[in-house]
């Protein structure tokens, strides 16, 4: 007898979110099946990769990650332009790491200025990511929302503690937000409900499940994303039917294994290729779990993953 492919009965779909400026919209989401299960549903918008840009010259970076950008690390706008022009970035993610009160503690005004410069330098959608300090993010991201009306930025992380202030700003100044919760599907759902209650339109909500890198608890994030998609697609869990953004590069490259030289760790092979594979593999696993937007760093890793998306989407 011929083998009959067992298919899953889906009864939900991921919402479609238009991102970026009016003139250059790209859309994410819209899936009606598990990731790349194209034999039983659709992924109208293949996952997108956003390239990271930092608001201040990075310190303590692995040489491998720094190499491609040594000419632009001092200038976020030039960095962003290089990502688009040289590496074909589909989106840019501006990491406002220097606003961290435990780091340089740069001001909201400085962050606004940097964001404006980067936004003006590129046409692709811009993600603006805070430093994960509740008070500071509220202040900084709110100001950026006010000052950058019309850009349709993606502002993150928006946590339960900041959701009112940042949600309201997103509504008023028309930006998209990344709703961030710590690796827990119920908390994710709860925050999405709260944002809905606040009046944030669904097409302006992305979900950030909080991700970590390979070897550092990746499995927790992986499973939360898989569960998120199951609930969204097979349980009609309407408040989980949002595209997922994975801010993965900073955690991948932070760990010691991504930084060790070949002298220090002869068993870990070539440091650049190792870093690239750590990042690409983390990204691929999150793609398989349901990621719609991957925030990545190294051009080689991005190229590998982009190729992989095409292969998985291809016929």
């Amino acid at each position, binding site marked *: 007898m011929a083998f009959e492919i067992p298919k899953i009965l889906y009864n939900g779909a991921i919402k479609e979110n238009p991102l970026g400026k009016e003139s250059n919209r790209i859309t994410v989401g819209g899936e009606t099946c598990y990731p790349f299960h194209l034999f039983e549903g659709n992924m109208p918008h293949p996952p997108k990769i956003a390239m990271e840009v930092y608001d201040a010259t990075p310190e303590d970076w692995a040489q491998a990650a720094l190499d491609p950008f040594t000419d632009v690390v001092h200038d976020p706008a030039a960095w962003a332009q290089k990502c688009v022009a040289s590496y074909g970035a589909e989106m840019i993610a501006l990491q406002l790491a220097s606003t961290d009160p435990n780091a340089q503690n740069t001001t909201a005004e400085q962050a606004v200025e940097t964001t404006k410069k980067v936004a003006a330098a590129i046409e692709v959608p811009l993600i603006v990511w805070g430093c994960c300090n509740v008070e500071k993010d509220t202040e900084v991201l709110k100001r950026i929302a006010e000052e950058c009306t019309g850009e349709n930025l993606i502002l993150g992380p928006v946590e339960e503690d900041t959701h009112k202030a940042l949600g*309201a700003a997103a*509504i008023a100044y028309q930006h998209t937000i990344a709703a961030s919760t710590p690796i*827990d599907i119920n908390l994710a759902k709860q925050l999405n409900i709260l944002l809905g209650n606040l009046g944030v*339109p669904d097409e302006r909500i992305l979900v950030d499940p909080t991700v970590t890198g390979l070897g550092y608890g990746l499995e927790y994030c992986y499973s939360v994303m898989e569960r998120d998609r*199951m609930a969204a697609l097979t349980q009609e869990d309407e408040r989980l039917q949002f595209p997922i953004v994975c801010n993965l590069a900073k955690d991948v490259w932070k760990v010691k294994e991504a930084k060790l030289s070949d002298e220090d760790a002869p068993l870990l092979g070539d440091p650049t290729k190792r870093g690239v594979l750590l990042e690409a593999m983390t990204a691929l696993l999150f793609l398989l779990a349901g990621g719609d937007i991957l925030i990545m760093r190294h051009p080689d890793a991005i190229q590998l993953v982009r190729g992989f998306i095409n292969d998985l989407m291809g016929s």
Partner: protein
Amino acid sequence: MSKIICSAAIRGAHKIVERAEAKYQEAMEKWGPDQEVGFPNTAYYLPVIYGILGVPVKKLGDVKDVLDRCRSLLPDMVDEHVWLPYLAPALDAGMTTFFAEEIIEAIRYLESPDFYTKTEDPSNGNIWLGAADDVILRKRGVEFVDGTAPGFAAVLGAPPTEEIAVQLAQELQEKNLYVFMSADHEGRSMSEMLVKAGVQVGWGTRLVSFGPEYTATVFAAGFATRAAMSFGGVKPGDFKSILFYNKDRIFAFAMPLGTVTDEWYANAAGAINWGFPTIADTPIPEVLPTGVCTYEHVVSNVPHDQLVARAIEVRGLKVTVAKVPIPVSYGPAFEGERVRKDDLFLECGGGKTQAVEWATTKDMDEVEDGKIELFGPDVDDVGEGGRLPLAIVAEFAGRKMQDDFEPILERQIHHFVNYAQGLMHIGQRDIAWIRMAKAGASKGLKLKHIGDILHAKFHQDFGAIFDKVQIKLYTEEDKVQEILEKATGVYHQRDARIEGMTDETTDTYYSCTLCQSFAPNHVCIISPERTGLCGAYNWLDCKASHEINPTGPNQPVEKGETIDAKLGQWKGCNEFLYKASRQALDHYNFYSIVHDPMTTCGCCECIAAILPLCNGVMTVDRDYAGMTPCGMKFTTLAGTIGGGMSVPGFVGHGKYNLTQRKWIVGDGGIKRLVWMPKHFKEEAAERLKKLAEEVGIPDLPDMIADETVGTTEEEILAFLEEKGHPALTMDPLLE
């Protein structure tokens, strides 16, 4: 609606429309139809007209159509001899009032461009700000969305004295409300009085001096209308959504101070369309029945010192307490903190003294929100190592408050008190036990702070279901006894309430998916006679929990068509289960242990297991650590059947459920029970006896074996035979 109000509003609307028409004629003659007209720096044209009618007034000529609409909408004057209620015509009159006022104000911008400052704050001696531009709207509107400003008070006229003006403004500011001021009373205006008294007005202080005339009231309506379009995503012309957005989200009200003229009535009628009630200081007729507004429409003759409180109550504005005002740290991180004997400063309850907790419902006028009273000695009066009896009474009032919520709220006292550093709370009801640590006392912690904690936390977490709460603490023996007696009566009533309910007469059960965080496919469905297996949730609790948090883990489940009445299976429950279990299960039975029993998450109080040789069932509770006749200890059983599986032969259940009529009734019910731990039997003795009598075997409790009889099937079988246990002669449990 009051005929007087109605007639006045319609009269006022006529006057205002006539005034607008005259202004329009004048302006047309002067500037012609192509003259641009509008409020400064806004994309919303004349916002009320744009929002409600969807008509963008750009030029003077566009005004004509709007005035025609006013005329067709404007109801006839009320006849002396007609006695019908007039809500609809009054609302229409109110709406035309706003249209006409916008036209009047727009022409004013044309006639006297410098009449308003067009800024955020007064400038060059001019205090009249005029309509908010879009920059102000966004900046301030954000505060309405994120809750830092819940709404606004549209104040018309002026209070009798500057002192009252200042006090009112302050009170409104304290509630984070914006104050939109317009119109005068006998030549005085609230704005001018504040300025004279040295109070800063402007958007910065939230005391917004819109304009000197009553027509400037329309700027408040315009602000609200634009908020709906800007923040609610409502399209111009979708008047219904605009009005509902305001009713549901913008906590605003009109506060006329002084003689209410026909024009003021017309404006008040307009505000009602937006769901904004009127609270007046003069003895005008009241409109109490609810309808368009959430609660009353017009409340009058309120003394000045009660105006704000009354307005907040009538508009249904919720109090928010951002921080728990106590001298020690507060948060869930301190919940598990223990106060040991050596650290002990003060102790209430715990067998040494009586302590009791009681949440109860009162009428609105019996409760003053935030009032905290202590009757009897406090920490300072007893000294280190002291003991006090304690009764904590939380008195709730609210339009949505129900008796059913009382136990839910009461149970929170445990968590809320525990969150405080230096306080430990154990137990509930009349076995409550509170310990205060020396470290807490030295930081100035008092018993009265328990009141502050409860007031703040109840509002934070449960504000949706009540409006006001006051806390009474008693530390005198006789008072505590008095409360105890009252409370015990209520406890019994509560228990009896669920007792009286049956599954057959209940169509809606409730789900509980609280445990899906660790048992992802597990779904509890709770009926009146099958309480939650964790023991924490009965049907009433779930119902209340659903009302408190409509999107939470307790969802109503329509049980639907009966598939098997004996085993307890319903179509609606199955459908819910299928979806909520992520398609892992498509059915289970409520009343069976043998045939597809309900799933178990792992946090069940007891686990029942079949004993095939005895043709019966045993149950073991979590506290019994020994071996059981089924060959497995509680922990092994929990590991075997937990995790959201339906495991025939085993089922998790609550202690209370054991003595409910429906416990495995599909397999024979309580008559199958052949073994249970001794301490559990003693604990459940009274209810077990009652149920045994009900099923016609009054000495059943004595026939049930326990560990003193044996912990193997063989040992207890002999006992059962000797006692003539009914299970032995029942139909075979396993076919």
